[in-house]
């Protein structure tokens, strides 16, 4: 008996299915025949049941893996769109944004569309953690493009309307939920901060101020929503970062205003109303 226990332990530690299985069969063999019949059936029903659970878990994990991959691709390509937007300058606004929008469209058709058939029914919420980062990044890229083009906020309804044609009619369409939209919006401020700094160094101060107003509006609106979000800790962290971004933009605007007055006499302008008169007019 000592020996058996030894084998058991060895089997347990080695964690290989085979010795364990052998042991189990050996263990049953020593029992009375009546008992053996009963336990064998128990054992096999347990095995059958667990085979089902194994299938379920395998399917789920594979699906999750596909969703994660799609989400990563969405993130990566949305990031590229955002970088494209940052290449904006006074002269090339149109073409830069045109390319950014085209790339954004590609992200939707090539990668966001992969999520549609994976997230049918309850899987939409079940796998949310797997796809949420990608969707947030997509929201960020889409809202950034829209803001640069029109100076307005792209609403969730507009994004979702754009996603409708991705799925064929037999499937329920993928509609971004308001939580991911808001989380993406919180990230947007970081990008707008970069954009504002870039615009300031390019001399487009008014544009930077526009961004400043816009970001403040978003921050103010989101402040009211934070306590109602499902996962407040994540959002709270983003709000802190957001406030930092807002302040960075404000400080940059402030510095330019203050220092602008120092630089003006040097530029030799005689137009007192425009302290940016040294900078050529913005061409559109």
């Amino acid at each position: 008996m000592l020996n058996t226990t030894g084998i058991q332990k060895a089997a347990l530690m080695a964690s290989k299915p085979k010795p364990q299985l052998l042991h189990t069969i050996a263990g049953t063999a020593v029992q009375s025949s009546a008992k053996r019949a009963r336990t064998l059936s128990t054992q096999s029903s347990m095995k059958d049941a667990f085979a089902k659970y194994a299938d379920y878990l395998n399917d789920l994990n594979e699906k999750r893996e596909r969703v994660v991959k799609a989400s990563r691709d969405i993130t990566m390509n949305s990031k590229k769109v955002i970088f494209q937007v940052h290449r904006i300058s006074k002269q090339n606004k149109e073409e830069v944004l045109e390319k950014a929008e085209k790339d954004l469209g590609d992200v939707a058709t090539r990668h966001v569309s992969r999520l549609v058939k994976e997230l049918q029914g309850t899987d939409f919420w079940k796998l949310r953690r797997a796809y949420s980062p990608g969707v947030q990044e997509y929201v960020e890229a889409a809202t950034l493009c829209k803001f640069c083009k029109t100076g307005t906020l792209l609403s969730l309804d507009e994004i979702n309307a754009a996603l409708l044609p991705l799925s064929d009619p037999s499937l329920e369409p993928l509609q971004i939920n308001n939580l991911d939209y808001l989380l993406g919006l919180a990230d947007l401020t970081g990008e707008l901060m970069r954009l504002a700094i870039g615009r300031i160094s390019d001399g487009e101060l008014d544009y930077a101020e526009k961004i400043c107003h816009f970001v403040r509006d978003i921050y103010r609106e989101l402040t009211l929503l934070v306590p109602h979000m499902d996962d407040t800790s994540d959002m709270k962290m983003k709000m802190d970062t957001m406030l930092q971004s807002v302040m960075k933009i404000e400080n940059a605007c402030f510095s330019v205003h203050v220092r602008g007055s120092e630089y003006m006499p040097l530029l030799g302008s005689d137009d007192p109303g425009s302290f940016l008169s040294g900078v050529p007019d913005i061409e559109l």
Partner: protein
Amino acid sequence: MNSALRNACFIFSHSLNPTPNPNAFPLILYLHSLQSIAVSRLPLRISRQEEPYRSAGASSFSSSSSMAGTDAEAPASSSLVEKQFEHFRSQLQDSGSLRDRIRSVAMEIESSTRLMQASLLLVHQSRFIPEVLEKPKAQVGLLKSLYKQLAEILRESPGLYYRYHGDWRSETQTAVSLLAFIHWLETGELLLHPEAEEKLGLNESDFSMDVEDYLIGICFMSNELPRYVVNQVTVGDYDCPRKVLKFFTDLHAAFRMLNLRNDFLRKKFDGMKYDLRRVEEVYYDVKIRGLSATRD
């Protein structure tokens, strides 16, 4: 900057501006910048008042401002923005109140399982007698009705099962572990997933039991086994370790068929082998002293 100073600057620069004087030029510039800072911190209303002055004084501004949408658009779009956020707020408040309802049922489930657990602890204090199970089993009916309530709440918002799943999942795991333990004490067999669903009345509705919750519940149940074995041996049931070990070995083997992710279930499963080893040790201790009624 306090508001008095801000207003002063604002008025001062306005009064100076209509007659631009080359001598006052640096002062005006300075005030201009101060004023713009002040304006940027004031509500939108004032910056709009400033608009005619701006376009008259600085022509470069009006062309640059159209890059980020014209000022005329601003009030319309900002009210749209406000509207959208208003909508979000009401949506989130709705889902928040739904969550509160779910939480309150989940708390009742929790207190019910706690009662069950407390009365089930009696199995450790004496040799196993079926009467001990009467009290915990009496709770099952209540649990069933609570899960029915939960299913009804969720029926109002189809597809959102997993949005709120976190609010009842640990309660469900505990419920499964208790039900499975009772079932095992009664029959010596494992409570399977469909059986667990049936006990909680979840088999017919679309509100089902998540398989992972079930498996985690089974892991919780197995945590109970070493203690049970030790106490049964103490009160003189020397055959108990053999039965438990047999069941537990099978269960552990079955669990190893699963390909687990690096998640909570995996962690619980990894812990299971220590419980199994403890049961083996008890079996060994009993066996080596010849206490068990040996048949081999």
